[in-house]
């Protein structure tokens, strides 16, 4: 039960970062922290009591394995998170060249 509360605390930390930070790079890092809390939650779901890691050993075949499906889902989601963060970083670097600052309060040309 405490593991799930850890997930929730990580999510709140990430959300606080996205809302209150002014530096662009800190917003990107906080978004990444929010996604990590989801990965932790997914990996915790598949736990079965008394299970071991799902690697088949030909010498000792009969065991209780934990659920391998959420682990495959987390692997895919980590790749997607990497692509999102890379895209965000590229846009941030180009924004710095155009505006000259990392402060999000200065970047408000589009209004209305």
């Amino acid at each position: 039960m405490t593991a799930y509360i850890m997930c929730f605390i990580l999510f709140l930390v990430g959300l606080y970062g996205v809302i209150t930070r002014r530096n662009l790079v800190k917003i990107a890092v906080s978004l990444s922290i929010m996604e990590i809390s989801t990965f932790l939650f997914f990996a915790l779901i598949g736990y079965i009591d008394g299970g071991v890691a799902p690697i088949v050993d030909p010498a000792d075949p009969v065991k209780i394995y934990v659920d391998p499906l959420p682990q495959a889902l987390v692997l895919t989601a980590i790749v997607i998170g990497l692509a999102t963060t890379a895209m965000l970083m590229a846009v941030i670097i180009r924004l710095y060249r155009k505006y000259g600052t990392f402060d999000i309060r200065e970047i408000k040309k589009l209004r209305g």
Partner: protein
Amino acid sequence: MRRLLRFARNDKGNNEALIKKRNQPTLKFRLAKRETTNDMKGMTIIVKKTTQLIAGMIFIYGVYVIVHGHLTPGGGFAGGVVIAGSLILITLANGGDFLKLIKEESGTTIVESLATILVITIAVSGFLFGTKIFFNNFLPKGIVGHLISAGVLPLYNIFVGTEVAASIFIIFLSLVIFKEESKE
């Protein structure tokens, strides 16, 4: 519309750019002589020799993680990231000037696209050989626990690993190239 053909280095050692308009001969523009900046100059000789020793071992470890993807944890993606790490290490330690980075980037893009097309070809080739189902595992599956087994999965791992390594290397290279070319 003018089109940038390529960058080149002419006889005097200066960088130049070749620009071509349609139905007109190629023009050569000489780029300004750049003082070497502090970024992307190579590091000291101790760092260079150490990375030459270590990067090879990291590369071999990455290949091990990819090829044993159906027996141990890891597989295409994790091994690809490790290989990209070794390539980035070599580039950081040895530096690189502008032209060399651009050539590396265009070559790596072709490798990445080719690897993705091969992945899709293997997936579609389930249509042609064996049963007519997309994404089927149609090569013979061997004995559990041996290296050459599990049908078509090791091939997938290898191509996905190549593609992931090329992608992450390109992300690094294009950010460095952007920083370099906006200093001129």
